[in-house]
């Protein structure tokens, strides 16, 4: 990066034409071919390689979790229980939930894209603790393997929430194995968060002030705070469940004077903030993508940055809204209802600022942008229905129905998964040095969007009409909507298979990407793709704000003059 920046001749034109990729060349040495052999991957300290390891493993678990979703939808095709028994169905949705929440959504963006990009975006050579980063991947794999063991041995049927005393006294399935798996995977998440926070505080390059950091880093910082503060509480809740199950002491058993609500408090104290652990990194991706494909600085940078921290902060004080129907005090329910609605404010700040970023921007519709648009629409619906559920009266009618299922799938799948795919497509050229096939991926983005809406919009109606969640049979009048939903899930499944296929294809046959195929401003785009192992040849010096397209135009022009 050129350290001298002259603003004497401001360039006003915005870059609209993307660079010609036919002249792009694959660099000879990069992090992927710097060392060879399986061991060089399994013992690596390179954050970029660990990101790739994570990407492979979470993709694996995503498709296992997705297979269970498919089985659930298949059973619900007809009102009668014809595919599986009630117990097996319970295991299906439990495994779907556990795998998707703990092994896919929580690590999805932070452990892959975050791992890959945060050091580069901050101008650092690596995360602060590379060995702990690798350890965190091994813990993830250990947790994942144990989950698979629980699955193969016969499954768990507590629901992903491990509700007591059901999980501690009434079930003979592999609750202990699954709880241990989540305990271990939780430490993987703690270590990732800890690494990010220390890196953001201590590893920024000269000139990289807090308010020059990309918003991607801000949102990861906020999510990391939640990982570090929330996950240990889940850990202790699971330890108590395990001890209770082994010794039968009664700490959560009302028959012995224990309080099942205590477990709910401890569990949701983590698991509500966990929702923000999942969504905040996705919001970071969207900020980068929207800015790049509008060629404009993110509108209200400071507001968007602080709204991430505000979401993290408020997110810690809303957990009781999961317990409104569990006999908590009316007065505390009132306070938690109010606080729940407050979270909508910083979320809306983000949505409005992204919309204003688009205004008068030079928008193009590459695949990441299509996914980002999908995110904005679906997340808004998911968020607004969250406000419905946060109001006390509505919650009593709608909770434990398909309305709530549709609500959190709009946020988690419509929001987070769209953001994850936006990010994977956006940074794919940087990670692999090759482009994905554009028209096919646009098709996949549109397929996903259509399939998603077809799957989950009918579930809002089903829930409103009173169809409860977690049952394998239902009254015949709900069948039409359920068939629609299952049909949508099929389309959605195709939408997710497509990227797996063409991204795999592009690894060998994709067009060479070049350094900066999107003409984006981030530090990661000012280096070769894929980057060298130590990221930077010399420590960069940040001499401009984030999303400074004028700086980029100046730089490009200068390079053209020098080379030409």
């Amino acid at each position, binding site marked *: 990066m050129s*350290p*001298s*920046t002259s*603003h004497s001749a401001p360039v006003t034109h915005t870059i609209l034409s993307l660079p010609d990729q036919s002249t792009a060349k694959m660099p000879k040495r990069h992090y992927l071919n710097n060392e060879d052999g399986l061991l060089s991957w399994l013992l690596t300290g390179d954050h970029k390689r660990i990101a790739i390891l994570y990407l492979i493993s979470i993709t694996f678990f995503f498709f296992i979790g997705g297979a269970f979703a498919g089985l659930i939808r298949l059973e619900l095709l007809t009102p009668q229980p014809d595919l599986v028994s009630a117990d097996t169905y319970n295991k299906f949705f439990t495994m779907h939930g556990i795998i998707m929440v703990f092994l896919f959504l929580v690590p999805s963006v932070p452990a892959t894209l975050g791992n890959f990009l945060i050091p580069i975006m901050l101008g*650092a*050579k*690596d995360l*602060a*603790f*590379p060995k*702990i980063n690798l350890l965190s991947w091994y813990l993830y794999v250990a947790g994942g393997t144990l989950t698979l063991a629980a699955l193969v041995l016969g499954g768990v049927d507590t629901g992903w929430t491990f509700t007591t005393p059901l999980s501690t006294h009434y079930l003979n399935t592999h609750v202990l194995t699954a709880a241990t798996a989540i305990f271990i995977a939780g430490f993987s998440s*703690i270590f990732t968060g*800890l*690494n990010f*926070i*220390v*890196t953001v*505080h*201590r*590893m920024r390059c*000269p*000139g990289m002030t807090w308010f020059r950091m990309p918003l991607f880093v801000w949102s990861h910082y906020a999510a990391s705070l939640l990982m*570090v*503060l*929330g*996950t*240990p*509480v889940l*850990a*202790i*809740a699971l*330890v*108590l469940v395990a*001890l209770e199950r082994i*010794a*039968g*002491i*009664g*700490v959560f058993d009302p028959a*012995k*004077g*224990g*309080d099942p609500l*205590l477990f709910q*408090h*401890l569990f949701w104290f983590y698991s509500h903030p966990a929702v923000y652990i999942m969504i905040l990194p996705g919001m970071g991706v969207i900020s980068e993508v929207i800015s790049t494909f509008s060629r404009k600085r993110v509108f209200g940078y400071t507001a968007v940055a602080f709204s991430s921290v505000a979401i993290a902060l408020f997110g810690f004080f809303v957990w009781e809204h999961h317990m409104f129907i569990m006999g908590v005090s009316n007065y505390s329910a009132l306070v938690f209802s109010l606080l729940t609605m407050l979270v909508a404010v910083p979320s809306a700040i983000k949505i409005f600022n992204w919309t204003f970023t688009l205004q008068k921007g030079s928008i193009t519709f590459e695949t990441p942008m299509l996914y980002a648009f999908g995110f904005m629409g679906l997340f808004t619906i998911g968020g607004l229905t969250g406000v419905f559920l946060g109001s006390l009266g509505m919650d009593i009618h709608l909770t434990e129905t398909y309305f709530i299922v549709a609500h959190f799938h709009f946020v988690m799948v419509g929001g987070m998964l769209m953001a994850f795919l936006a990010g994977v497509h956006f940074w794919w050229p940087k990670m692999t040095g090759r482009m994905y096939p554009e028209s096919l991926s646009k098709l996949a983005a549109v397929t996903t969007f259509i399939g998603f809406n077809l799957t989950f919009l009918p579930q809002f109606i089903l829930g409103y009409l009173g169809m409860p969640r977690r049952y394998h049979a239902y009254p015949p009048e709900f069948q039409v909507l359920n068939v629609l939903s299952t049909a949508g899930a099929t389309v959605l499944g195709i939408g997710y298979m497509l990227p797996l296929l063409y991204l795999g294809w592009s690894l060998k046959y994709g067009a060479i990407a070049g350094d900066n195929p999107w003409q984006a401003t981030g530090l990661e785009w000012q280096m070769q793709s894929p980057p060298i192992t*130590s990221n930077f040849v010399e*420590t960069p*010096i*940040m*001499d*401009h704000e984030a999303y400074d397209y004028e700086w980029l135009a100046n730089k490009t022009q200068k390079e053209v003059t020098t080379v030409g």
Partner: protein
Amino acid sequence: MDSVLTTAEHVEHEHASLPQHRHHFETEEQQREAGSFGMWLFLLTEIMFFGGMFFAYLLYRNWYYPAFAVASNQLSVPLGAFNTVMLITSGFCMAVGVWAAEMRKKGLLVLMLILTTFFGLVFIGVKGIEYHEKYENHHIPGADFSVAQFVNPAAYGIKEAPLSPDMAQHTEIYFFLYFAMTGMHAVHMIIGIVLLFWLIRRANRGDFSSGYVAPIENFGLYWHFVDIVWLFLFPLLYLINRHPLH
């Protein structure tokens, strides 16, 4: 905007490099700061971890006050107090050890680490004696748990008002919390002692005699944290309201 460029000289500033310096840090100071910051964050997660149990303690103590008061009378204050002194002494030795490492006094550092380990082991030993006593009295929660001593204290020669069988049953929750909290604390102590053996070996080899003291400092933070947890556990479990209000 260009003013930040002057920091370039700062980066170029030369440092005599230690062998422990990791390549991805610009300076050793940065490495040291990152390490200690990471340790503080880790301790924060530990606070949240123990916090769940303190929360459970608070709840059940309010619900089952008589059971908690009578059950806590079963703990030995002299043993607890002795252990508290052991732990504080151990923490003191650790603090001197950190100072010794910074002053590059190798012999003193090794001695202090050994003393820290010794007092830690004494603590674990005394804890074992206490646990064994609970075992003999059938106060370990689970299948063997017995409320006999609380329902009929006179038969056991205990000068205590008897609890109703209903309330006496809740002493099990007290003892569960006692074992969960002190047990989790003891697990942290044992992990610490294992790390101490490793540090003693390294200190003896002279790893910390050249000004590289980060592992000693960070371990010191951990060890003091474990001490502080005990300083909360001791009053909550052993001391406060030993006798029920009548």
